[in-house]
């Protein structure tokens, strides 16, 4: 059972995607595992042929428990414990996320409900548009089986507990310091408008893509903000995997990673972000995305607050926040003008870096956004 987050102690195997005799490649989804963060697609990180499955669907087992045996393994299962590993070796190259999963679509409420009442989703026919399995479909199937109390609230409160545990640990263990830098966002906004105007809807970019790329570039250039801080102290990561805080409808958030974001073109980041948001809300995150982030970006979008003061996601050492872009007075050549202003904030780990370095890091992100054509 892989650890899919710093505070995960156990997980429930929901479904196998492999059988004895299956050939498994690195990055293949081998099983679905339920955690407080929802259902995660667990990927293999080695290759081999499956000899036997050890853990049965429905079983809840502690992190580290072998789930399956590969041929040629002594007793060691290779489909296991990624995590502490991933945490300790952030430079490990994680598998490339595949294209969007357009398989069976199930609303999270339906999935949670199905899990709570023991309805097998593969036996439910979706009545929603495009065959989406809705809560109602599951209710219907459950009624036939004999229903139990709804667990949607339970799933939500489990996620809330996971967030609380992780954030409490962060505030308890990590000596945060905070910095804030305001910038005139007009050149980035103008560049983006021009870029989007020349393209059909599906090829356009959201501002968040610029923020992610500028942060990733700065993280690659400035050590001390990218990596994990564990029992052996800080280990910088050569790769930049940017966790992106994604809100779930109705509350809660998760921050899966866009891998190697510093080296990807903006259009690629946009596509992956779109895919990630869809899978987070549809309940199909991959294990490599959950544990691999080396720093996190949190953007308020159009919610209307000037700045946010985020909390570091352990074992990472920095999180960059972006407020909403709002019209504010701004001094240009000695006179006050109205400009779209963006506030960049940084929460960083004082065990690893200082305010001076943090200010340089933020300035570097700002400089990237002042020249979006170079991102």
């Amino acid at each position, binding site marked *: 059972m892989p650890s899919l987050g710093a505070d995960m102690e156990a997980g429930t195997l929901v479904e196998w995607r492999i059988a004895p005799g299956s050939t498994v490649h690195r990055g293949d989804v081998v099983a679905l595992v339920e955690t407080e963060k929802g259902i995660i697609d667990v990927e293999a990180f080695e290759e081999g042929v499956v000899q036997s499955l050890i853990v049965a669907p429905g079983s809840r087992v502690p992190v580290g428990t072998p789930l399956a045996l590969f041929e040629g393994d002594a007793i060691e299962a290779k489909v296991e414990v990624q995590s502490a590993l991933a945490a300790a070796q952030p430079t490990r190259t994680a598998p490339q996320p595949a294209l969007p999963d357009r398989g069976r*679509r199930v609303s999270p409420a339906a999935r949670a409900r199905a899990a709570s009442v023991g309805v097998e989703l593969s036996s439910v026919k979706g009545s*929603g*548009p495009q065959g989406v399995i809705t*809560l109602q479909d599951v209710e219907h199937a459950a009624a036939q089986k004999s229903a139990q109390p709804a667990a949607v609230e339970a799933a939500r409160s489990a996620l809330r507990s996971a967030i609380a545990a992780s954030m409490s640990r962060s505030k308890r263990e990590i000596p945060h310091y905070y910095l804030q830098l305001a910038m005139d966002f007009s050149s980035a906004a103008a560049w983006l*408008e021009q870029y989007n105007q020349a393209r059909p*809807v599906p090829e*356009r970019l959201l501002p968040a893509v610029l923020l992610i790329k500028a942060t990733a570039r700065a993280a690659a250039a400035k050590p001390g903000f990218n990596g994990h801080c564990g029992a052996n102290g800080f280990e910088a990561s050569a790769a930049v995997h940017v966790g992106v805080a994604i*809100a779930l409808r109705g509350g809660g958030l998760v921050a899966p990673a866009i891998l190697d974001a510093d080296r990807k073109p903006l259009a690629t980041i946009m596509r992956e972000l779109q895919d990630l948001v*869809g899978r987070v809300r*549809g309940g199909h995150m991959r294990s490599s995305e959950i544990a691999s982030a080396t720093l996190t970006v949190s953007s308020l979008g159009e919610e209307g607050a000037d700045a946010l003061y985020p909390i570091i996601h352990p074992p990472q050492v920095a999180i960059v926040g972006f407020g909403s872009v709002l019209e504010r007075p701004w001094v240009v050549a000695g006179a006050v003008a109205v400009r779209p202003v963006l506030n960049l904030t940084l929460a960083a780990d004082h065990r690893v870096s200082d305010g001076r370095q943090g200010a340089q890091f933020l300035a570097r992100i700002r400089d990237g956004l002042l020249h979006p054509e170079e991102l």
Partner: protein
Amino acid sequence: MSETRGAALEPRILALLAEIAPDIDLAAVHPERAFRDQFDFDSMDLFNFAAALHERFGLDIPQRDYRELTSLVRCAAYLRRKLPEPGGA
């Protein structure tokens, strides 16, 4: 494929919403309230929605028109203005 505004637009718009955001409860959609206020519709949802409308109705939707897509009623009115009359030139 480009479409005309022959059939009722609202159900087709709702079907597109269900496609891009399967986790919203369509039964509860209020036609005049902004999507954002009803189910945490964010900029990525709006992007996906515009892309789906672009694909399904063959419309090029300039970014400045995104604000016309923010509720069911506004969106249907926008499509009525933009789509060709059924059987028209």
